[in-house]
């Protein structure tokens, strides 16, 4: 069964450093997403991406965040200058038609 894959599974970074989280969505999917889950809290929407542009973003997704689909298969989330409060599990997701979203295993980011 096709699945969304994410790398790295874990990353520890120093505050102020740039981080890139990578995702390979399911191959024929058209909608791409990033969500995050701070430890012990609910899963929160960050951004959705369709037709090579951001279609929707949350208040969390400020100027420190950016997304890119550089080569038609990868979908990346960049955090420009990490803060302690960015520590979370980041989930990539994709969907064919936008009504059923499939999630990856997550990338656990720890900012120290």
């Amino acid at each position, binding site marked *: 069964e096709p699945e969304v894959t994410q790398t790295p599974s874990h990353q520890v970074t120093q505050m102020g450093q740039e981080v890139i989280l990578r995702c390979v969505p399911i191959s024929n999917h058209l*909608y791409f997403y990033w969500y995050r889950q701070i430890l012990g*809290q*609910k899963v*929160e929407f960050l951004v*959705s991406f*369709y037709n090579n542009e951001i279609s*929707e973003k949350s208040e969390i997704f400020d100027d420190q965040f950016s997304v890119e689909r550089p080569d038609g298969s990868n979908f990346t989330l960049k955090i420009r200058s990490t803060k302690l409060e960015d520590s979370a599990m980041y989930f990539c997701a994709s969907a064919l038609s936008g009504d059923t979203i499939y999630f990856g*295993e*997550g990338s656990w980011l720890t900012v120290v």
Partner: protein
Amino acid sequence: AQSVTQLDSQVPVFEEAPVELRCNYSSSVSVYLFWYVQYPNQGLQLLLKYLSGSTLVESINGFEAEFNKSQTSFHLRKPSVHISDTAEYFCAVGGVDTDKLIFGTGTRLQVFP
């Protein structure tokens, strides 16, 4: 705006007992409803979904959920749970006017032998 309420943060239950995990939502537009499961140290897996049609939907591992529009609920049920069902269960709502999901706070199902 949409929101999801999962009233129970934890549900302890003995193996082979029935269980119901409650989910209520609010939305001003037609909704899609989902249950996702997160096993320890794993990602989110889609358990079942309601998009349209029959209000009773089932998963391959014996869970079912019923969309009740009048009560704005989408409770998850299983008539007989297994130890392996121990996990965090998240209810989520999407809508026809958005491509994002709003998640509830989750319910931790703990199945005891």
